[in-house]
């Protein structure tokens, strides 16, 4: 066997190994989803989506949980999107290299790695106590906004970096000010990437349990929230609560709720992938 054919064999072997490793991940994912699907699918119905919580598993529904999740999703986007994009623009376009931008950068890198439970402790003190928001939707979404801010900032910067320099230069050369250039050219061109990052980070936020529990999301909320100051529950908390109940019926409910939560995550990831691909195509100037 010549060396070249030996090397080729190794190459082929790794190829197969690589495919297996990739499939391993996918297979585990399928097992998960399959398991949950088998448990929960029988429980999925319109009633399940439309019912209030109840002590009887077959009567319990997730109306308040999924509406709460949607509220959180909306409010968190509203808060985190402008802040994160603003900070991203500042760091990428304005900040001069120096100690200040270094501090900002280190700091953001750090925040991205702070465990979510610590954000919960932070939200409890700042938003619930000091700002007096109580266990409201607003306090919850502020907390989650801080949690995902670093991710949005980083992806905004990546997206802005990907805008061809030539576009920026063209605008400058026509006498556009910095902000005019950013607003009229850079942001429209990078919006795909920015949105992708925002959606991915928000889809992480809606799966979070621990910080919201600490902030004071409730387990039993028998009404749909009408304002940001209302108290709330979300799907992961409902799931967590059901999973720790003795009755088997609740485990089934939890599986069904996980299915709903996963489909929200999937839909959001799908949108993100779609945007990313569309935007990658468009970006060939």
């Amino acid at each position, binding site marked *: 066997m010549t060396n070249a054919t030996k090397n080729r064999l190794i190459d082929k072997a790794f190829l197969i190994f690589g495919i297996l490793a990739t499939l391993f991940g996918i297979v585990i994912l399928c097992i998960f989803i399959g398991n949950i699907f088998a448990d929960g699918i029988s429980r999925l119905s319109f009633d399940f989506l439309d019912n*209030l919580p109840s*002590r009887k598993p077959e009567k319990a529904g997730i109306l308040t949980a999924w509406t709460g999740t949607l509220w959180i999703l909306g409010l968190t986007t509203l808060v985190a999107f402008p802040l994160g994009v603003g900070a991203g623009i500042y760091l990428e376009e304005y900040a001069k290299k120096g100690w200040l931008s270094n501090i900002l950068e280190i700091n953001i890198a750090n925040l991205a790695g702070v465990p979510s439970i610590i954000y919960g402790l932070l939200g409890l003190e700042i938003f619930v106590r000091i700002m007096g928001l109580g*266990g409201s939707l607003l306090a919850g979404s502020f907390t989650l906004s801080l949690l995902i801010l670093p991710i949005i900032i980083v992806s905004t910067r990546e997206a802005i970096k990907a805008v061809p320099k030539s576009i920026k230069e063209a605008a400058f050369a026509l006498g556009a000010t910095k902000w005019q250039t950013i607003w009229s050219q850079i942001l429209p061109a990078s919006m795909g990437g920015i949105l992708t990052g925002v959606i991915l980070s928000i889809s992480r936020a809606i799966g979070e349990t621990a910080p919201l529990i600490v902030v*004071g999301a*409730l387990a*039993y909320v*028998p009404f749909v929230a009408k304002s940001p100051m209302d108290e709330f529950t979300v799907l992961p908390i409902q799931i967590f609560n059901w999973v720790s*109940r*003795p009755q*088997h019926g609740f485990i089934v409910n939890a599986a069904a709720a996980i299915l709903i939560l996963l489909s929200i995550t999937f839909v959001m990831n799908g949108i993100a992938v779609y945007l990313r691909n569309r935007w990658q195509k468009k970006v060939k100037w």
Partner: protein
Amino acid sequence: QKSTEENTTEETTLSGQIQIDGSSTVYPITEAIAEEFRAVAPEVKVTVGVSGTGGGFKKFVRNEIDINDASRSIKDSEAEQCKENGINYIELSVAYDGLAVLVNPQNDWVADITIEELKKIWEPAAQGAIMKWNQIRPEWPAEEIHLFGPGVASGTYDYFTEAIVGESGASRGDYTASEDDNVLVQGISSDKFALGFFGLAYYEENKDKLKLVGVNNGSGSVLPTMETVANGSYAPLSRPIFIYVSNKSAKREEVKTFVNFYLENVTSISEEVGYIPLPEAEINKQKEKFNSFTAGSNSTK
């Protein structure tokens, strides 16, 4: 059923919000009551959280909630803070939570266990010393014993140590703890040499996976049932669980109605969700206590 309907016509005018938080042990009862209360006073928004007894009291002493679900009595430090913040409160017991002692169904040697034996197993000195079944009773197998129990931060754990070892929080540390009782169910049901304890409700729902052990407190082996717990013969492994109501909240009509409704219906509800109701007389005592509390706090206005 009938009384509920009557109430409906009487009290539809009530509105407002009642915020409840606290122990996850009491949560199923409170949640069920709140659910029934919806039929009585649909305009009253009742929310229930599960921050734990301690977490609930943290909010209670700041007057952030109206009612706290508690699986233990208020601690001195917490009572003090209430005082500081000018909060008067009342403690109402609402049901019993029986603690079941459990082993794996494949375990064919244990039928009952004495309080002394439990103490011998769980006391701090047992750590690293009592490691085998036959150290407890010589006829039991010479296999390692695997212990399971609720997390040390839970009221259930506090109660168990108090009742068995004699001092709250005093126990061996080398046992498997979890805040989630389903996890304990899983642990015991997959381990032939396991021994554990947790709330009776979890046993009721998992009878096929677990084997209940009778507890012998000197007067023979007793299994926890409605009767044995209610009549006190399953001592000491049953404890009362409470709700705490603050005076400020109790002044509010919707809270007063809710608490009365709670005491009225808790007997049937607790049975339904796997807890053991208080005897009739005891419930009546709680009702009276609450009435005089509201009257008292109204007069001190």
